[in-house]
């Protein structure tokens, strides 16, 4: 091994050790700065993705139209483009109206945010949203939609934050089951992902009368999540050696969720 190689190896080992031994707060700051650095790229990526989605939808309809009336294709194309645009706008307006309605009805102070990236490549289920400390977000704030719980804020940069999703194994939420006195802790598993979430409530009593379809809501214990937020519905209840375990279908489609709200307090 030559001199430069040994020197680089020494520097490498020192840097890795320093990085690993850095205090948690310092690492979180580095992570937030990095997130802030990549935020323009993530926002651009999100816009491009949405644009491509809209374009492919438009092309499908053009094909259908072509089959229906070949002779009037040119004229129809123009009409169809306008129609598509209006349809997209209508969907957008409906979605935003729904979100706005939820925001007004909700007893919580809500900060609206948009999902700009989803991590599909690892053992962690996270996403990035386009709001940060400048918008009043802080670590551990609950993230919801009108359908139910999405997760909680993990890292906050100036105008971007990462959210750890309810399907992640590291996120544990205290929940109660509708129609029973049962309370337990819900979390995902390592096999859980956004498109196939595997949520389980543990620490339930073995004799609990839990049936499929029962609603699961946050119990408010722990202080991070307010009580009464819908998490999902029970799919199955099984009794293990020491505890009862309920398998839960999340209320929110974590793979498709676009608009979310961060709970910043109570109104």
């Amino acid at each position, binding site marked *: 091994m030559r001199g430069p190689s040994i020197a680089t190896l020494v520097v490498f080992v020192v840097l890795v050790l320093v990085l690993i031994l850095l205090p948690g707060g310092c690492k979180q700051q580095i992570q937030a700065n990095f997130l802030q650095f990549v935020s323009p790229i993530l926002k651009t990526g999100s816009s491009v993705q949405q644009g491509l989605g809209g374009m492919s939808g438009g092309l499908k309809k053009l094909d259908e139209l072509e089959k229906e009336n070949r002779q009037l294709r040119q004229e129809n194309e123009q009409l169809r483009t306008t129609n598509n645009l209006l349809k997209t706008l209508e969907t957008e307006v409906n979605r935003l109206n729904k979100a706005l309605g939820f925001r007004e009805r909700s007893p919580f102070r809500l900060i609206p945010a948009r999902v700009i990236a989803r991590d*599909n490549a*690892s053992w962690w289920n996270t996403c990035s949203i386009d709001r940060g400390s400048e918008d009043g977000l802080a670590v551990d704030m609950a993230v919801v939609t009108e359908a139910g719980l999405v997760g909680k804020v993990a890292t906050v940069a100036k105008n971007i934050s990462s959210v750890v999703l309810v399907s992640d194994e590291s996120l544990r939420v205290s929940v109660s089951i509708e129609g029973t006195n049962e309370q337990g802790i819900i979390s995902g598993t390592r096999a859980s992902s956004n498109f196939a979430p595997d949520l389980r409530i543990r620490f339930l009593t073995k004799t609990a009368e839990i049936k499929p379809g029962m609603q699961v809501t946050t119990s408010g214990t722990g202080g991070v999540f307010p009580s009464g937020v819908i998490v999902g519905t029970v799919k199955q209840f099984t009794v293990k050696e020491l505890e009862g375990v309920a398998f839960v279908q999340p209320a929110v489609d974590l793979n498709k969720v676009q608009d979310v709200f961060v709970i910043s307090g109570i109104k």
Partner: protein
Amino acid sequence: MIRFFLVLILSIFLSFIFQLYIPPMIFLKGAAILFVPALLFYGSLAFPFPLVLVLVFVTGLWNDLLTIPRSSGHSDYVIGTSIIIYLIPALIIHGFRPLFIRKGWAVHLVLAELAAILTPFCLLAQYAILSFERSDFFFSDVIVWRILGPGLIAMVTTPFVFLFLSSLSHLVGFRPRAEVMKLT
């Protein structure tokens, strides 16, 4: 050499971002398409040892900064761990560098497949560390697919990544062979 090194660093960074927008393979139980290991392993073959260390450091650090959630300042996977995880396969691949700089495309193809086979190692190591930290070895067929699946996908994609990077290196005037001859 430095020009291609910078291009590769940029490619790794952009691949990290790009990977966020690629949906997982549902027919492979959610296996992810990973380009970053292929880029890193190509760099491990093309560059001398000091630059491989820099590549590994940057790749591992970016991986952890982008993917690991830290709830309330705590994480069961320490930022920087991926540097060590990436280091092991990168050094194994780097051992084949003499072969890479002397032989033709057939050897490159074999090395690309070797790189693809080493891809699941990174995921397996991450899974093992997480399981150890959480004191729970949860195992299912989904876990197996999420470890092996990216390797299978990489067996298809890595030769193309290698081909692309090889053309790119020629484009920026970097030829590992010429550089080694100059050194010796």
